[in-house]
Structures are given as C-alpha cells and as structure tokens.
C-alpha cells in the first residue's frame, strides 16, 4: 500500500463487524481508501452500504474491527478516549445533518466552540476570513433558534473550518434543507475547498450534491465498488441505478 504523506486521512484494510455469530453484520469489508489534502470527496451508496460507518471510523467516532485508519500519518488505532477526543477537537471538523449547534450559545460562540474547548486563542485573520465566508453578518450574535435552517448549517460548516482541521466530515449536510438553501451550503463547502484548500469528505444520498465533489466513492455491502472523478449528476445517477439494480 502506498504510504503517501500527502493524504489527509486514509483507511488500510478497514473492516467493521457489528454483532456476533448469527446476527453478525459486516459494515465494512476490507476497505482501502485515501483522502488527499485539498480534495473534496463524496461518499455514496444505498442504505446499509457502510458509508456512514466508513466516515465514523475515519473521523475517530468509531473504531475499526480490523485494519487501520490514519489522520495525517497518525494511526487512530489504540488511541484512548481522551486522545481521540483531542484529535477530533484539533484535527477534524464535523457537520451533521441536523442539530449542529448548542442552543444556549449564539452563532459566534458556536463557531469558536472547538477552540474554546481547547482553550486556544482565535487567529483573528483566519477567523475574519471564515466569518466573511459564512456571510451571516450581524446575525452572528443570534442564538441558533433565531436562525434559519440554512444559516444554522452555514454556521456549522464555518465551525468545522475554524480550527483549521486536517479534514472536515460532513454527514448529509443538506439532508434537512430545501434545494435552494442546500445549494448555498454546498456552495460554501465547495469554496472552502477551493479557497482555503480544505480537505472535505461528505456522505450524501443526493446525486446533485455529490456532483460538486472532486471525486465520488460508491459503497455497497461494505466495499468500495466504484470511484468516479468529478462526475456530473447524470453519471452519478446512472452509477447508483446500476448499483441498486
């Protein structure tokens, strides 16, 4: 296996097994994958294909049964809960489908939360750049329940970027949004890759969303079955159809 140090994250022979005996389920089955720095990767696949599990295992939210996963060149195997937590805090950004923000903190505080938890000072230049790119302006002092769904997701993306992580994972970031606001969020994600050279991995059901990515991985039964480079949504659609069929 290639040990390129250019990868922001990678998985080597990753296997994840849930349950035992009769009820055993192989969610990941010998997966090998790399995410290059500055690359926007979309992961697709039918329900139960293992796409979320793959993301969780690379992101340090879950552990592989066998095989290894790395962030930069650091192995995630054998890390304690505390080490994993610090890794997530410092090296990884997250955007979830919903409930991304702490309701008791305003948008700005939510944005800087990972830094505050780390007790780190905010780099004002970087912070400014991120804030400008969120485009929330004076609404930054509002609490999440005073923001629209799209605005909330943009704050979530900005929060994922603020600590300049090695990699950002987005789990169906547009799943709860209408197509217009969803588009805005995707735009924002794309610009983070293009303008800030951010590495981004996004799990999605939506072919249109996936078409924004530099490459799309297709998973089925815990295996990577197909990889497309900068595909159009039609190509993705066709691939999905074939996989389902």
């Amino acid at each position: 296996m290639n040990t390129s140090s250019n990868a922001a994250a990678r998985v080597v022979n990753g296997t994840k097994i849930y349950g035992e005996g009769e009820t055993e389920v192989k969610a990941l089955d010998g997966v090998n994958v790399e995410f290059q720095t500055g690359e926007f990767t979309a992961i697709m696949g039918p329900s139960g294909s293992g796409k979320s599990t793959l993301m969780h295992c690379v992101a340090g939210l879950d552990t592989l049964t066998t095989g290894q996963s790395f962030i930069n060149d650091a192995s995630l195997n054998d890390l304690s809960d505390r080490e994993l937590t610090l890794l997530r805090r410092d090296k990884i950004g997250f955007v979830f489908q919903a409930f991304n923000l702490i309701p008791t903190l305003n948008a700005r505080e939510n944005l800087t939360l990972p830094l505050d938890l780390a007790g780190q000072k905010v780099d004002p230049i970087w912070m400014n750049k991120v804030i400008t790119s969120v485009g929330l302006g004076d609404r930054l002092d509002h609490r999440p329940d005073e923001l629209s769904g799209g605005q909330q997701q943009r704050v979530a993306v900005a929060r994922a970027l603020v600590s300049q992580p090695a990699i950002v994972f987005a789990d169906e970031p547009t799943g709860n949004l209408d197509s217009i606001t969803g588009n805005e969020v995707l735009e924002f994600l794309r610009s983070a890759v293009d303008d800030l050279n951010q590495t981004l991995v996004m799990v999605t059901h939506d072919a249109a969303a996936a078409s924004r990515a530099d490459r799309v991985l297709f998973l089925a039964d815990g295996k990577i079955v197909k990889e497309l480079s900068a595909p159009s949504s039609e190509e993705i659609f066709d691939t999905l159809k074939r996989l389902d069929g």
Partner: protein
Amino acid sequence: MFRLTLRNISRRKLRYALTAFAVVLGVAFLSTSFFLTDRLRDSFDELSVEIGSDQDLIVRAAVPQDADRSIRVPVPEQILEIVTTEVPGIKTVAPFIRAFSVQPVFINSKGESEAVTTIGAPQFGVNYYEAGQLTQYFIVEGRPPEWIGPVEDESVIGEFVLDVDTASDNDFVIGNTYQISGPSGNKAFELVGTINWRSPDENKATGATISAFETETAQTFLNRNIPLGDFGEIGTFDEILIEVEEGADIPTVQNSLQTLLDGFTDQFASNFLALPEKQQDALTSYIDIQIEVVDSETITQENQDDFSQFINILSNVLLAFAIIAVIVSAFIINNTFSIVLGQRVKELALLRALGATSRQVAQSVILEAILIGVFASAVGLAGGYALALGGQELLESVGFGRSTGSLPIRSRTIIVAAVIGIGATVLSSIGPANRVRSIAPVEALRDQSGLTPTSLSRRLIGGVSTALVGAVMLIISIFKDDLNTAPQLTLLAGGALATFGGVYLLSPVATRPIANLLGRPIQKIFKMPGRLAKENAGRRPRRTAATAAALTIGLALVSMAAVVSDSLKATIGKTLDTSISADLFISSEGGFGPPTGFSSDLVVDLSIAAEENPELIDSAVSYRFAFAGMTVADDYKDVASTDLALLSRHMDIDLAEGSINAQAPEGSDGTLLLHSDPAETNNFSVGDQILVKFGGTREANLTIAGIYHNATLLGNWVVDNSTFDKYLPQTQDFFLSILYSPTTNTDEALGFVTALTDEYPQLAVESQREYRESIEAQLDQVLTIITVFLGLSLLIAVLGITNTLALSVYEQTRELGLLRAIGMTRRQMRRMVRWEAVIVALFGGILGVAMGILFGLAATAAIDTSIVSELSIPVKSVIQYLAISAIFGIVAAILPAYRASRLKVLDAISHN
C-alpha cells in the same frame, strides 16, 4: 389504560425508582418515629403497670391537680404507726424515702474523684427495707445496710448499698468507703453490698443509679427530718407503701385508712396552732397538708401520664421533622413528573391521536402517581420498621427503654404513612396531570414539543401577592406583642409559609439572573464548560427553581434555628457583659437531662470562707428554681429564690422601681420581686401585698418590694431563699455565683473556692468566660440535633438535584453527543454537569439562607424579650451553609456527570 400505565412505569424503572425513593425516605422517617414512640409508650405503660402494682395502697401528701408533683411534701413518721396498727386488713407496710441527685463519688482511672453520672436517668437515694411483697431491693452481694449511729456526727461512717450496674460500671468495691453527695451535703459511707432493683434475678433499674441506706440513716442524710430547734426533730417519709391482706377488700381498707388519716390531719392542724412561733415556722410547709390514700391504679395512671407527656413531645418533634421531609419529597415528585411528562408529550399526543380523551390521558398520569405512592409507602413502611429496629437497639444500648416484646405495628402507623405517602405523591402529580390535558393530538407529529407551563405573569402575580401576605403576617407577629403564644406562633408559621410559597412562585424569575451571577466566577475558572454549566442552569428557570426549592426548605429551617440560637448567644453574652458582676459560677456538670441540685452546705461553707477571707472573696449567692412552684391568682408560675440581701452585688436585674433587699413589713410572709411585664398585666405595683400559694396550697402574703426589667437571669418571679426554705423546702440549690473582693488575687481566690468544691466532683466551677462557653456549647448542641433531624430533608433535596440532572442529561443526549464529537473531553463534560449542579444548589441555598435569616429574625423579635433581646446573624454559619450547598451540588452531580461523560458519542448524536 391501566395496563399502559403499568408498562410506562416498568419501562422507566430507574426514573420512577428515583422519584419513589424520595417518598420512601419521607415515609420511612415518619413511620420510624411512630414505631419507636409506640414502642417507648408501650414499654413505659408496662413499666407503669408493673410499678403501680407493686403495692395495693400508698399513703402520701396530696398535691393539687396542676401543681408540679416534684414539690410534694413528705408525711410525718407518726403516720407509719397509725397505718401499721390501727387498720385491719393490712398485711405489710413499708416506709419509703426517695431523694433525687444522690451521687456516689468514686476514684476514676486517672486517679481523680468523679461523681457517678447517668444519661438522663435519675440518681436515687432511697431507704433500704425488706417487707414481703413490697420488697424492691434484693441483695446480690454483701449484706443490707445497718444503723451505725447518727450520721450527722462527722465521726460516724454509715453504710450503704448500690445497684449492681452502677457498682460494676464504676468499679465500686464492697468494704470500701465512698463519699456520697446528697441533699444534706457530702458524707462518707461504707459500701456493704450491691442490689438488684425490683427483681431478685435482674437489676431493672437500667440506667438509673440507686444508693440505698438504712431507713433512719436515710431520713437524716436525705433530709427527711424537720428540725424543731429545742424540741428535737420530726422524722418523715415520702410515702408509706401498703400490701393488703389476701381476701381483704382494698376499697374498704382504703376508705377506713383515709378516714383515720383525715382525723390525724385535723389533729395536726390544731396542734400546729398551739406550737410556739419558731416551731410553726419550721412546719409551715405542713400547715395545710392533706394526706391521701391512693390505690395502684391511680399510681399507674400518674406514671403513664408523666411518661406519655414526655413521649408526646418526642413524637411531635419527630413527626414535625418527618412532615418536613415529606413536603420536600413532594416538591421533587412534582418536578420529576413535570419533566418526565414533558419528555413524553409525543407519546401522549400519539395516544390522543389514537382516540384517548384528554381525561383518560390525565387519569393515566394520576394512576401512575397512585401506583408509585402505594409502592413507595409500602417500601417506606418496611424501611421505617427496619430503621426503628435499629433505633430501638441504639436506645437500649444507651440504657433507655427495656427490651420486652417486639415493635408494635398500629393500624394508625400504616394509615398515616399510606395517606401521607400516597397523598403527597398524588397531590404533586395533579399539576402536571392537568397540563397533560392540553396536549393536542397533532403534537405527535411536531418536531419540538413540550408541556405548556403556567404563564410567568400568573406566577408573578400569585407570587407577589402570596409573598406580601406572608410579609404582613410576619410583621404583625413581630410588632403585636400583646398576643398569646399560640396565635403568635400561628402567625409566624403562617407568615413564613406564605413567604416561602411566594418566593417559590417568584423564584423562576430570579433563576437566570442569579445563575448568571453565580456562573460568572465559574466561567472565569472553567472557561467553556463553566459557561455551558451557567447556561444550562439558567436555561429552564422553572425546573431549576423547583429543584432548588427542596434544598431551600431545609436550609431555611436550619438558618432560622441558627439565627435564633445566635441571638440567644448574643443576649446571654450581653447579659454577662453588662449585668453580671459575679466572677465564678457553680452548677452541676451538664450532660443530658435537667440539671441536678446540690446541698446548700456548699453555699454555707463558701459564705463562711468569704467571711474569714474578706480580702479574697466578697460573697457567695445561691439560686433555686421551682417550675410551677406557686400560684398567683390561681395561675401556676415558675419562681426563683435567691439571697436578696446580696443579689444586687452579683448581678443587675435592671430594677425599675422599689428595692431588691427591702425588709418585709410586719404581717407579711416575705418579699417578692417581679418583672415589669407580669407587673403590668396584673396591675401590681411596689408595696402591694399579694396572696400566693406555694405548691398550690401553702398560702403566703408576699409584699412586692421591686419591679425589674431584666428577666433573662432569674425569670419573672423572684423571692428570698428563706421563703423557699419555709414553703418549698424540697427545692435544692441549682446554681451558685461567687463575687471576688475588688482587691483579690484571682488565682488565690479561685484556689480557695475549688478547695471547697473539690468535695463535689459533680459540680463545675466556671469563670464568666467558661460559663458563657458552656452555654454556647449547649445551644450549639441543640442546633446540631435540629440540623441532624433536618439532614434527611437535605438528603432528599440532594436526591432531587440528582434526579433533575439525570433527566436533563437524558433530555440533552444529542447536545452532549455533539459536544463530545467536536472535542469536549469527558472531564470537561463532567465539569459542565457538576457546576450546573453547584449553581442550582447554591441558588437553593441562597434563597433558603436568605429566608431562614428573615424568619429567624422574625422569630427572635417575636420571642419574649426576657428570653431574647439581641438580634444576631451568624455570618460564619451562613457562609458554611452556602459552602455546604455547593458541596451538595457536587455530590448530587456525581452520578449524572458520570453518565453524561460515558455517553457513546455515536449513539448520542443519533438519539431522538
């Protein structure tokens, strides 16, 4: 619906178990107090019957209905002969003498002499007798005490026997000579034997000390001889015990004996008037003596009444604390129901959508409450029984009560426990159940859903008006001092209750500002976790307020007691500083139970010493107290006696008018000093002659010599010692004060005094400072006991905080998962939950302490100024209470914080 309810409960076992646990604790405390006091009452009743049936009849002096029985005079010894010889049907007769505070002195392991002490139990000095069925003393080792000679003669060493338990506990040795401190002073006696009381096989005087002397010796040593100057003395007995012959009719014997004794009394009265005046004086307390013959039922009844009086006080106190605990748990149940139902809105809405009426939904909630109440009451009763078993053993181990039979289970105990346990649970579920009614079926589909709480504006109006009513009641109770105790207490308690209710209704409004204030330093120190703790505490004001309220109740009561106690201390301190000029105080060494008196030999000895060494000691004054010792206009009053000639040199009772040491005018039986309050109510002024009855029967015309303002020292009514000598000869000195000469050498003077008091190891000699400290220590002890009793309520409150936090953690699972995902460490998460708990607890603590201080000041102001005249807030204790609240918060957070930190991140994020 019933099946669904059962399912609901079984599905949320832990949550309901926590809720029920609060009720269980309350009910357990309640039933323990019932079980234990019933047990005590039963064993005392048995004991009373046993003691009562020892004899068939008792001859003794009568005491009026309401008078304190301890002032009963003894009967002249001639009566023994009448009883023995003149009435048919009497089988055995025994003369009986019983004195209190008779303390043998032994040499302890450190080589110091020490007086035998007991925990609350009396220390009897009695006469030894053997009289058939009437015999109460059974020799275990050695032999009975015998007549050696007149013990008033210093060279005569009398004999005594001691109960086996006291003897073995303190290593008394038969054949050795011991000092015994009794009413006529200290005398040496040889121990000639040990005895069992009331049974040949077993000493039944558990806890009490019994020193028994030969009867004539007892009469002298225990002060049962009336000196008649040149005419010698008359011996007396406290009672004459009678066993009636088999087959004889007890009432007949009783009646003929009574007739005979009435004749004797008449004779005595007419003889009395013929006596020279000096002799009449010595016999004053016998002038209108009535001798009565009572049967065993009467004795049993009297003893039972005495015991039940004591037990009723005990059981009422325990009951009050138990009810407080139940009220505290009611707050917790109410809060838990609100939270749990809030979390179940979707499910309940689904029920509604499926066709359940709003009534059915509400009923299902009430049904849940009933089931929890039934379960918790049952467990609480069982727990209470177990606790009572432990308590019984504890009481027995300290020699209190006797182990016969098991704990009585009265239906009253079960009914009250069930009514209170189930009632509290159901009542506190009514509010949440009513809110459940308004859940619309459509809410099943909504994303965010919760119960609609009572509007804040309604709470605001209700809160302000309730608090105002409370404040007005408090103010009235403080400033209207012409009220009787009962209405004043009612006003005070009602006012406190209303104020608490108002503050409780208002407290959600204050939650956020106070949480922000308290959270500021926490945020400073703990950064983001501190910040989030602060936000979470202020997030749901009603929940925080309700959780804190449980703690508020306990702390309000503790702080209130602390303020009253501190004010008492301040009053005593001020009195000592400004009103007392005496340098030393002598009283029997504390411990439990009432203080014991001592022989007036001591004050006589000290006075002689003062006369012989005027450069060291100025004077010594003794004080005696008789509770309900005399009547004024047929009302029993507590009365004190002292040496009025010397009193003003030892203390300043703040004389308003008249004189303290005025001579009684011709035709008056003595002088009386009284406090300005009773003087005003009775319309008495200096120079008035009033008729009082000592012991309720012995009339005396006393002249009011002075009216004073400071009743802290001696109470409301004060007479000279000579008046007590004459009318209440049974009272003993309880207290001495000693004044040094202005030119004295303190060390030398103290040495002089202690040389004399060394003979009385049961007495403590204290300087002003030491005296003050020992009083403060006693007050602290009372406060500690109150705090311990409130401890259960505080424990329940801590449980409530734990419960709320656990429910909040459950509610916030997703939020917590998110925090963990983006990098919050477990430690930071525990910190966040912990400091939220501290803020909630401190909020409750601050409200409690603030209200407690308010109530305490109100109570202090309402209490008669003769008891408390200074207001004082114990700042140190207040800070301690707040610190303890914070610690409670930390303890309460242990489990929820652990659970929060152990959440699996992935599960938490996807939690619904």
